[in-house]
């Protein structure tokens, strides 16, 4: 079968490109059912971006959900006893509540998960694939990285824990230095610690110079080790499109190490989310395994980068109701072979494009 790629939409071409890209790095396609047992989400609610889930009772009484997330299902499916490195990619739809609207949306998502004996090479390769993924949408992209080990080391050094830590992380996500400083002071932290936490929100920019700035914020062993690890992982990447930004704070019950988000110029919010989530596997009892992955949300991309698909010119075969189907087939096939998009109708008022009128055995333009 020959497929004319020009007939595909931008999203379809992107999906094909990404499939080839991920398979070139040893990833296998992972297909799954759209349903998952609700209990998986109850046990890992904080892993999800939203608690709004479409739930229903299955015929056997089990509570089921339309998947709001893919990573949890893949992590669940991994054999905890296997020593092999699992490299899986997917193209699935997830069901989530739309922000600011009381309705659910079906969101197409493409992503990959690398689970098992994940090394620094695997982390670097995942970030590399994230960069290539974003670059396939728009060469003017940025990938922001952070390291949760560093963020938690800064919090620890400042003396913040428990509820105060949650408040500080919430302000950090919003890049609100004034809120960080206020919360820190209200929480009884020293002026110096409060000022450093406020600076953490503003540390953002090209990777190398921002890394040097980050080193001045915390000199503890744990913080140094986190920055060193981040440097090693990011060194092989395209530095021109790489940024360091500590406002990327995923849930620390599940995520650890490197976390990242991707942006393209024509979409007003991040389109790619990823990170290292060894703690999720540990929580699932799959100890000794590490994991990293990312998901690309395709719903916002269509608006920014969708292009009108070049539809083939249309034609209509007009025939009498009692006409021999074989004669209609022949007329339709003849026009379709010319590359036209052909419909066969009996109503003279339902003509689109070129008219092929076989009622009279004539062809009219």
């Amino acid at each position, binding site marked *: 079968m020959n497929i004319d790629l020009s007939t595909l939409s931008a999203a379809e071409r992107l999906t094909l490109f990404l499939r080839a890209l991920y398979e070139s790095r040893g990833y296998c396609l992972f297909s799954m059912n759209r349903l998952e047992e609700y209990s998986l989400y109850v046990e890992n609610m904080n892993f999800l971006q939203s608690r709004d889930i479409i739930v229903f009772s299955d015929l056997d009484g089990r509570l089921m959900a339309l998947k709001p997330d893919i990573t949890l299902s893949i992590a669940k499916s991994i054999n905890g006893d296997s020593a092999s490195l699992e490299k899986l990619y997917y193209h699935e739809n997830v069901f989530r509540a739309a922000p600011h609207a009381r309705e659910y949306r079906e969101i197409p998502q493409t992503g990959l998960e690398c689970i098992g004996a994940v090394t620094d090479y695997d982390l670097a390769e995942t970030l590399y694939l994230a960069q290539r993924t974003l670059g396939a949408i728009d060469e003017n992209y940025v990938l922001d990285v952070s390291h949760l080990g560093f963020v938690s080391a800064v919090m620890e050094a400042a003396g913040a824990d428990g509820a105060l830590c949650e408040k500080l992380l919430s302000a950090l996500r919003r890049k609100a230095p004034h*809120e960080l400083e206020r919360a820190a002071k209200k929480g009884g932290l020293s002026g110096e610690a409060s000022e450093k936490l406020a600076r953490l929100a503003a540390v953002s920019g090209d990777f190398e110079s921002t890394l040097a700035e980050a080193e001045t914020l915390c000199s503890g062993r744990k913080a140094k080790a986190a920055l060193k690890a981040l440097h090693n992982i990011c060194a092989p990447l395209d530095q021109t499109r790489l940024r360091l930004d500590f406002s990327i704070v995923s849930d620390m019950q599940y995520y650890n190490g490197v976390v990242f988000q991707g942006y*393209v*110029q024509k979409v007003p*919010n*991040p389109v790619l989310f990823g990170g290292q989530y060894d703690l999720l596997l540990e929580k699932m009892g799959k100890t000794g395994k590490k994991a990293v992955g990312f998901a690309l949300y395709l719903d916002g991309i269509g608006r920014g980068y969708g292009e009108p698909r070049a539809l083939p010119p249309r034609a209509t075969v007009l025939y009498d109701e009692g006409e021999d189907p074989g004669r209609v087939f022949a007329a339709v096939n003849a026009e379709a072979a010319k590359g036209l998009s052909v419909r066969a109708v009996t109503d003279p008022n339902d003509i689109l494009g070129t008219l092929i009128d076989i009622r009279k055995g004539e062809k009219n333009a």
Partner: protein
Amino acid sequence: MLNIALPKGRLGSTVYAIFAAAGYPALGMPETDRKLVYENAECGVKYFLVKPSDVATYVERGAADVGVAGSDVLFEQGSAVYELMDLGVGRCRVAVAAKNGFADDPSAPLRVATKYVNTARDYYKKLNREIELIELHGSIELAPILGLSDVIVDIVETGGTLKENDLSIVRVIREVSARLIANKTSYRFKQGEIAALVKNLESRGGEGK
């Protein structure tokens, strides 16, 4: 060019004065006529004047790169934007208020009239207090006077309107002030311009005023 969404009205005028003093004036501002867009190509800014409660939407969806919105609106709408700076103006409080002498009856759901439904729901959920929300869009103070609600959750600036209507504050939920907000993608692709704006606003002493 930095696209800036400013709130119309009194807060917008105050905020524009801060921006102008920081080196970002625009001819004709503030609001001399029905114009909604003002540009200063030399300074690299274009101002949009929008309804105060819509500023965060313009910024979140990328129609504006930055904007100024009240922290009450940001919390209520749960806007996914960066909150780069407290401009220190537009100070007020979101508070629970009731008729003078009000005593809560815990044996029945509390009737709460407000336009801040998410804020009120969040606040009473934390208190584990069952409520009946009544969404209103103006003259909220009337609700307890007419027996429509037991309490209101609303913005309180001086407390003058409450006093005149025989109402008083029961509890302050949060302090409010105007915040400089930024779109997440713009923050990446226009970081130089946004950082310069923050620096200039800070250096004219906007923060914490």
